[in-house]
């Protein structure tokens, strides 16, 4: 009798505890800095993340309902676009920049290669409305969502309100993007002493710290600064980078330093996708720098690397590949919401 009572009590307590335990959707990985995104203005919830995921994968956000965010940000490329040096939009239009990999966005203050966008919530607006990307008008997009068969219900589940507006749409997209945290590469296991580098990776890591880490700082592998890394101007694009935003001549040819996490899969490289592989990138830093007036002071002294050393650095860079990120089912196409809707 007594035992029965204890069992019933514990079952009740566990049920209540599980029901009210706050589900955790975002954690700061060990030894990482605090994120800059203000979660208090957009608290994460399972239904909002799921809504954002549906929006991310749904071509309804584009004018002709053909291109989704995921068209140029595919999971197996670390949410970049393989084999396309410049972004590829509706009606086969070609943009002017390489679609960047998406991860660890809660730590990022400025978005786009030139920092044109100042908040994660506002980021999606740029590709959605760009005539060579998704080409859609924001009001038309909201109308389409409001009259769709699935979104009023998904918004109701997320916000207790089936009325769709730009703010709750963009915030839901942010929710999904915020969950894209990559912190489970071999590098991380080594740092947590759960694995060890090979000899070659160790040599590569030492060379990396000496030659690359002042801009690609650990643990995020970027300091998010805007620098001119010595790329000669592509006269078919004449892209002045950050200068366009700030109008400061000192900012000419500066672009945001990207993360190197999952770099193995986010090719091609640079803001205009000019390098197809990592060897080309390293050759650029050793032999290809264009010395213009705004070249980063950190690059003024030549980087000297033998071809064997380059191979070692690349071996290290491959330890930044995070399989649990690239193949995480929570980040993939939401069949249960979108395919079901397509069938209905």
């Amino acid at each position: 009798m007594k035992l029965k009572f204890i069992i019933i009590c514990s079952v009740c307590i566990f049920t209540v505890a599980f029901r009210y335990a706050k589900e955790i959707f975002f954690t700061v990985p060990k030894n990482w800095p605090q994120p800059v995104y203000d979660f208090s203005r957009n608290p994460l919830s399972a239904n909002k993340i799921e809504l954002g995921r549906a929006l991310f994968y749904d071509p309804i956000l584009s004018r002709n309902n053909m291109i989704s965010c995921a068209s140029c940000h595919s999971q197996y490329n670390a949410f970049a676009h393989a084999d396309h040096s410049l972004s590829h939009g509706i009606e086969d239009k070609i943009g002017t920049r390489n679609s960047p990999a998406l991860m660890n966005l809660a730590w990022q203050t400025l978005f786009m290669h030139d920092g044109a966008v100042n908040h994660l919530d506002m980021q999606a607006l740029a590709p959605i409305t760009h005539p060579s990307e998704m080409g859609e008008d924001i009001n038309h997009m909201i109308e389409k969502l409001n009259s769709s068969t699935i979104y009023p219900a998904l918004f109701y589940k997320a916000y207790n309100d089936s009325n769709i507006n730009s703010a709750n749409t963009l915030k839901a997209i942010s929710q999904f993007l915020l969950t894209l945290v990559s912190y489970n590469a071999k590098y991380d296991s080594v740092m947590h002493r759960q694995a060890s580098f090979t000899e070659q990776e160790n040599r590569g890591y030492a060379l990396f710290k000496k030659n690359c880490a002042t801009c690609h700082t650990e643990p995020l592998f970027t300091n998010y600064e805007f620098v001119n890394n010595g790329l000669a101007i592509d006269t078919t694009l004449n892209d002045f980078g950050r200068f366009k935003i700030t109008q400061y001549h000192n900012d000419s040819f500066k672009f945001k330093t990207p993360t190197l996490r999952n770099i193995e899969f986010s090719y091609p490289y640079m803001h205009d996708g000019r390098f197809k592989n990592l060897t080309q990138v390293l050759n650029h830093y050793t032999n290809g720098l264009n010395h213009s007036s705004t070249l980063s002071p950190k690059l003024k002294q030549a980087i000297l690397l033998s071809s064997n050393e380059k191979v070692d650095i690349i071996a290290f860079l491959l330890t930044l590949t995070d399989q649990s990120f690239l193949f995480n089912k929570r980040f993939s196409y939401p069949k249960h919401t979108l395919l079901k809707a397509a069938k209905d």
Partner: protein
Amino acid sequence: MRYHLAIIFIGFVFFLKAQTKHNIHLDFSMLYGADTLNLKEGVFKTNDANDLQFQAVKFYISNVQFLKNKKVVLQESNSFHLIDASKLKTLGITIPNNAPVNFDAIQFNMGIDSLINVSGAMEGDLDLAKGMYWTWQSGYINFKLEGTSNLCNTRNHEFQFHIGGYQMPFYSMQTITMPIKYADRFLMLLDLKKIMDGIDLKNQNHIMSPNSEALLFSKRIAQAFSVRSK
């Protein structure tokens, strides 16, 4: 008995009066010199010799405050208003003054401050779907003025001034302070002639990004406001 009822009734009237909310009404009106702008038909023709016409006048008024001896005595909470000359219902702002307090000046911002500009997606008048937000580069458009003039050597003689910028040195929000005498209804006037007179439409017919021209333009807008009690 009747006497008692009368006292209760008078008391009740006073009670009601004490409960009456004191509100301050701001009514916005756009002018071109002596003429009142009317955009109901979608276009307003001025008497200007070069066939100057306006098609859109939209701007943000934010952080409305009332001052007494240069100190803030009353301020509207959540104070963001998109004034659109073509939409009558956007032209009035009502601010509760329940205390009520006395004041000798009104102060407001033309535009949106830098903090809001970097704080993500907003609703209401700040909803970016209202068309007062740049999509290719973050930031609110503080002031939009569009129209045509024979002086513009552009497609359909159009001019477009989209004035924004929330970062130094091109921070184009303007704080405007004007002395007023206590009243509960004010006419807020914006004279577009004062703005246009400073512009050489032959050489300058569009501003679409934060820059020094936009900053100069925003200063002209600030000079074009005036207030009258009604």
